[in-house]
């Protein structure tokens, strides 16, 4: 970085990535600066690949050809061991079933801390805090296999948060959940955002994303084509059929109310826009 001071939680410079045996790179020259405490949603193609690169899974665990650099709190993911990155970045994957590989919720939550040699007393403190945060304290001794989908994903988030990362990366965390489970997960994410955790996520529910995200990125052909606030994002891409937007936002574009109004992202904002 030529002595340049890094202030972002995650910074990428000219990041490109091509999977082994693939002819074309899926990420092409991406420059990003994600500020601490910011929530960034990612849409478009190769979004999971971008998330894996931001979290250091690429290049450590996924083979391919990576160019450029990714800095997590100033540490280059190329040269920093995954165990060091794991203390800073927590990654929640799509399938909650595969992230709970211990026998009870409690054992799943402490697993990362045990691996990182956190003292037992400290483990107990963190265990109680994260279980309370995700609302699973009453289920701490429950076998992971007996949880509902939403509970499983919350347990996965708790397991990641127990390591106390400042950055949380979530790859479609609600893909396999029903609306109730999705709401449970987003309730936790809203609380984490209030606590100042940096969140980067791929999520297909626009109704949940729009009020949570500070920025929405759109990846088109491996490049960031739009990087804007949710309001601006929907304005710019309102004609793009690939974009799903909250129903209230869509209604606003189809039948705008009289006068100058901000694009609504929530039902409450919609009510105000239409004078309800």
């Amino acid at each position, binding site marked *: 970085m030529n002595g340049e001071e890094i202030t972002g939680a995650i910074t990428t410079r000219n990041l490109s990535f091509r999977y082994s045996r693939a002819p074309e790179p899926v990420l092409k020259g991406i420059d990003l600066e994600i500020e601490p405490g910011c929530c960034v949603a990612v849409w478009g193609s190769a979004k999971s690949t971008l998330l894996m690169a931001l*979290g250091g*899974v690429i290049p*450590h*665990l996924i083979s391919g050809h990576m160019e450029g650099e990714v800095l997590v709190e100033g540490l280059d993911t190329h040269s920093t*061991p*995954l*165990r060091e990155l*794991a*203390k800073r970045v*927590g*990654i929640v*994957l799509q*399938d909650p*079933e*595969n*992230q*709970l*590989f*211990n*026998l*009870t919720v*409690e*054992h799943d939550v*402490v*697993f*990362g*801390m*045990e*691996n*990182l*040699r*956190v*003292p*037992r007393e400290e*483990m*107990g403190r963190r*265990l109680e805090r994260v279980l309370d945060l995700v609302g699973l304290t009453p289920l701490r*001794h429950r*076998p*992971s*296999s*007996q949880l509902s989908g939403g509970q499983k994903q919350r347990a996965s988030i708790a*397991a*990641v948060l127990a*390591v106390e990362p400042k950055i949380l990366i979530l790859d479609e965390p609600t893909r396999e959940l029903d609306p109730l489970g999705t709401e449970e997960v987003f309730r936790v994410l809203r609380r984490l955002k209030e606590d100042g955790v940096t969140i980067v996520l791929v999520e297909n529910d626009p109704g949940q994303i729009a009020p949570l995200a500070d920025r929405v990125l759109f990846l088109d052909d491996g490049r960031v084509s739009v990087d804007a606030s949710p309001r601006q994002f929907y304005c710019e891409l309102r004609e793009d059929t690939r974009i799903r937007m909250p129903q209230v936002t869509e209604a606003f574009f189809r039948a705008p109310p009289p006068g100058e109004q901000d694009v609504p992202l929530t039902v409450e904002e919609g009510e105000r826009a239409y004078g309800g």
Partner: protein
Amino acid sequence: MAGSIYAHALEGRTPLARLHPVTAMVWTAAMVVMSFASLDLRLGLGLVVLQIGVALIGRLPLRQIFVVLLLVLPLTLFITVIQGLARPGEALLSIGGLSLSREGVLLGLAITVRVANLALATTNFFASVHPVRLSMTLTRIGLPFKYAYTTVLALRFLPLVLGDLRNIQNAQKARGYDIERKNLFVRVVKIMPLMAPLIVTVLRRAHSIALAMDLRAFGAFPERTWWEEVASPGRADWAVWSLSVLLLTGYLLLGFTL
């Protein structure tokens, strides 16, 4: 998992779960050695009674233990019949030129009892030992954690694999692929084509679990801390160790004399 054998140990439902994991290992090792030490039917049956007694005293899940025994029964009956047909000796039963010899049947029964004893020893072990405390103990006695952890992982992974198999079966049944109503042999043949999608699914799942484990710093350091605690062996543990040695010695002596 509530119905699984190890759930009893996990939830501390049995007083045996309070014993040190090494104690359970010593006891089980003694039972296994005794099972192999003699083919005397009386000794073998005595061992069965002893192990069922332990299960009763330890409030282990007897019904589930018997289910395990029922699972091994067809194989052992097959062995008994084969031994009866193959071994020369006094005929117990003759049908159409085939006769079952007394010696062969007795040998088959002794093997059945041996298999039952091995099944009892292992199910009693898994019903009494907390899997995480077992991993912890194995790590402390020198086994690298990544190997010691396989017990826990296997207990979590196997039900997932069975679930995947059920899903594939149901998907195929929905398309008219009949598996259920055929006899056992046809069923085995019918299940073979399901192995390819199962293997692919299992490999994908294993990759995903491995990724999730790496992301939580699995194997980051040679040593790790533990949330579970295992107290040093107490009087009860010493008593079980002594009893194991005494029983084993007595059994071996009896085995040589009978």
